[in-house]
């Protein structure tokens, strides 16, 4: 029985490992942390698997991965006993990313830095939409907010990126 459960779990959940790892890499911005977080999240998913009703396995797994990534980040922040108020952190990230943008030459490094500089709530919807190609309904399930909120966050995220990248290419040119 347990054996069968694990096999079904593997068939349903493991095909979405690439999406899970991509999301974790962008949320944690560190590939080793992302590996540990995805492994831990998958084990949690196995524990909750009885509660999975068989609708959208990808959205279900990514919900667990996303939530675990934030738990992980919070744990890290208190571990280091830093006073990581999100406003301060975003501000620092913005400054660093702007500096990087001036130095970094390739397009993909510039785009990556601009995405990294976004606050978490905007970055996650951008990654889920542009890289994992999820629908608004799926994103709303993963992030746990109404579709209208997904729409407005996506729009804010894209506007910020257009600004950051547009301003930068003018400066370069």
């Amino acid at each position, binding site marked *: 029985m347990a054996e069968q459960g694990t096999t079904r779990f593997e068939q349903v959940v493991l095909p979405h*490992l690439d999406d899970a790892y991509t999301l974790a890499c962008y949320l944690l911005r560190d590939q080793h942390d992302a*590996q540990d*977080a995805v492994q831990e999240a998958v*084990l949690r998913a196995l524990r909750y698997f009885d509660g999975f009703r068989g609708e959208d396995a990808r959205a279900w797994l990514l919900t667990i991965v996303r939530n675990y990534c934030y738990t992980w980040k919070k744990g890290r922040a208190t571990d280091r006993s830093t006073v990581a108020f999100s406003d301060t952190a975003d501000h620092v990230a913005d400054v660093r990313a702007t500096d990087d943008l001036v130095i970094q030459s390739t397009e993909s490094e510039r785009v990556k830095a601009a995405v990294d500089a976004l606050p978490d709530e905007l970055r996650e919807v951008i990654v889920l939409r542009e890289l994992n190609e999820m629908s*608004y309904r799926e994103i709303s399930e993963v992030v746990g907010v109404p579709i209208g909120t997904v729409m407005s966050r996506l729009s804010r995220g*894209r506007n910020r990126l257009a600004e950051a990248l547009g301003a930068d290419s003018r400066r370069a040119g």
Partner: protein
Amino acid sequence: MTCADCLESLGPYIDGELLANEAAVIEEHLKTCPDCAAAHQRLVSTTSRLRAALTRHPAPDVLKARIRAALVQPVAEVSAAPKRVPFYRVVGWPSAIAAAAVVAVLSSALTFSVTARRPAGETVRSELISSHIRSLMPGHLTDVASNDQHNVKPWFNGRVDMSPNVPRLDSLGFPLVGGRIDYIDGRSVPVIVYTRRQHVINVYSWPTNTTNEPPVTASSHGYNVIHIPRNGEELWIVSDLNRAELGDFARLLVGNS
């Protein structure tokens, strides 16, 4: 349709989230309104830049290997612990105490005879398998993560009393992942980590006074363990990789170090 309505719907429009008739209205408006058409153009170019520049990250083989190993473990634990009815409920207290005394005497005698007969290699082997399984849990695989032997080898300086061999075997299909220190058989030993497809291979080594002996391969709990005593050093290789390929790995490792 007003321009404000149009601008608000541009996101859902390019994401294919609008119904056909809603999309048709936007399309009509974009043909006649240059401002909204420019905004549409900007949005399309931003998303295509994002998609072109951002990389997806496929889950690395080592992550898949760790997940596969972790998925096997909990099931094994569950099946190994069947529901038990407490012994004293079945037989009553006095006889339970008497029986316990007999069991205690017998089991210590048994333990003694078993440990007396068990070769020293056996306990090391089971320690190594435990270490291998532990290494697959989150955060335990490597203390130094690098596919470059020039980063991995010097990391051990001053941390253990020997410098392990770290040959590069990635061109032969066994990429290096990193290294760590484990505690085996009462001492700190260096561990070098390689992978083969989705299998993790842990290589342990420590100094000893044995001479060259032929390798010994043993299997237990689905893991293969190869023991190679040679030139004052013991080499132990542990993996769930099949015997044939692990044997190839052992030959390459010894041949290249």
